[in-house]
């Protein structure tokens, strides 16, 4: 019998994505709490910055308006970037159902990607009502269209950095099964060292070199600094090249880890 190569079809992955979006939409309580906590954080951060600026004139040249815009947009991005989107991998390794995924005619990592993308797209839709809520408390400056376009592109690159970081995190479950501690640390690192809470430009100068060298900055900080104009158009190419480099490095690490991890399953039986 001559075995012909399978033809790759996108359809199953599009379906996975759609089903995952539909699934997210059914967790209504989750949607409300997520929007609620977003509103609270926008309000609190604005209050904190206003109070700090009352005693301190614009540090490192950032005006109050710029920093409020920065932290609000950061929280909006967080709605998407903070999602543990490849959690399904960890769950399915934990309960052993990963074996049934391998018994289907699908590309398993692509399945997890599609599943996560559906979840992310749904939460991306939430950015619209979230923005509306935010505008009740704060004023956001909107940059010119060219800057917005660069910001969008940089955000997309940041999204892929976030995806692979998250995938790597969940891939460690191949070896440890229990990842909640690593997860906690990673969330804290991405939010803090990524510049979601405090812009990295406000970090002590001695630390800045180090934090910019980490992949977390490529997730949040780069698109946000483009948005508020701290990164000027002349440095777009350089900044996004760094982001793209992180995407490539993290994708390579993920691939190696996936190969080694799935090899553990096929050789060791999980």
């Amino acid at each position, binding site marked *: 019998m001559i075995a012909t190569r399978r033809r790759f079809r996108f*359809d199953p992955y599009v379906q996975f994505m759609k089903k995952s979006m539909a699934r997210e939409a059914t967790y209504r309580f989750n949607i409300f709490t997520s929007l609620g906590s977003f509103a609270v954080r926008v309000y609190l951060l604005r209050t904190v910055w206003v109070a700090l600026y009352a005693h301190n004139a614009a540090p490192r040249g950032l005006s109050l308006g710029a920093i409020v815009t920065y932290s609000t947009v950061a929280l909006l991005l967080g709605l998407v970037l903070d999602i543990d989107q490849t959690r399904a991998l960890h769950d399915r390794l934990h309960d052993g159902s990963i*074996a*049934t995924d*391998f018994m289907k005619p699908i590309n398993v990592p692509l399945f997890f990607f599609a599943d996560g993308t559906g979840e992310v797209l749904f939460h991306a839709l939430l950015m619209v009502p979230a923005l509306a809520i935010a505008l009740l408390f704060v004023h956001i400056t909107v940059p010119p269209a060219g800057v917005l376009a660069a910001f969008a592109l940089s955000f997309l690159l940041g999204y892929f950095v976030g995806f692979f970081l998250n995938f790597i995190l969940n891939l460690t479950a191949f070896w440890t099964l229990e990842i909640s501690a690593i997860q906690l640390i990673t969330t804290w690192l991405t939010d803090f060292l990524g510049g979601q809470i405090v812009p990295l430009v406000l970090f002590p100068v001695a630390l800045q070199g180090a934090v910019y060298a980490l992949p977390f900055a490529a997730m949040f900080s780069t698109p946000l600094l483009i948005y508020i104009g701290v990164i000027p158009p002349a440095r777009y190419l350089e900044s996004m090249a760094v982001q793209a480099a992180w995407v490539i490095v993290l994708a390579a690490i993920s691939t190696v880890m996936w190969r080694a991890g799935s090899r553990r399953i096929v050789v060791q039986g999980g």
Partner: protein
Amino acid sequence: MPIIETDHLRKVFRSIKREPGLGGAVAALFSREYEEKVAVEDVSFSLEPGEIVGYIGPNGAGKSTTIKMLTGILVPTSGSIRVAGLVPHERRQQNAENIGVVFGQRSQLYWDLPLRESFELLRSIYDIPRARYEENLRTFSDMLDLERFMGTPVRQLSLGERMRGDFAGAMLHDPKIVFLDEPTIGLDVIAKEAIREFICEVNRERGTTVILTTHDLADVERLASRIILIDTGTVIYDGPLERLREEYGTHRTLVITLFEPEADLQVDGAVVESQEGNVVRLRFDRRVTSAEVLVRRVMDRYRITDLAIAEPEIESIVRRLYLEGYRSSSPAAPA
């Protein structure tokens, strides 16, 4: 031409050697010492299309490991496999299109989705032509009575419903071969019968080859014409069920409960196996003494309140095989 062929299949798991206790766990982090565990020692068999085979053996015998190699998710250490002409672990995805899998302990369906949407997803995964899909769905829905809970998310289904859903899901793409792992575990008698009927019918109507792994030997008795017995990774018997019955099913046990204690109970044609209080187990050779004759002899001599044949015949045979191993054309044990 056989649809499944394995030749001296062997699978050895290698793991880091670990001493017991916390210290051992820490030491294992730095250890380079490995220990090997042979899960499958030497398994060769070949299956013709349309066969239903009971693949049975005690826990840890190597059943699941064999099935995982046949489905392509485990790579054999040595030996060869062909499933519908393919080497499963080299063509995992292509092999997956030829097979269907049902695990009694684990659902293949998508937990958050209604059954109907789970099926739709499977249609897309296996690229089943729309007309074929609709037809199969209608047939299975009738056979398994799925219509009532088609819109229910899988997580909310009862075990019986979920299993019926799983069976339909595994058969939608007309697999040539299905692997069933403990398909009736935990089900009530009615659900068990529905599932067995479904397997029979699918095999008869579509010529699907079935490999059935189970501890419920009633499944095997009802469905399989051939059994492959595996123990400590080696095939110890491969052949028709009847031959096992002829060679090993010579002895049965009659359990009686006496009305009053009897110190020295004796019945012609049977040996007292054990006696606990009023409960006596009598072992007899059914070729010499029929159960009917034995019961009559017992009742002639003693007053009893209850009697039963100890367990289904096949179970006692298999239990003996697990304990003693199989010797072909074994002489009948003296009564």
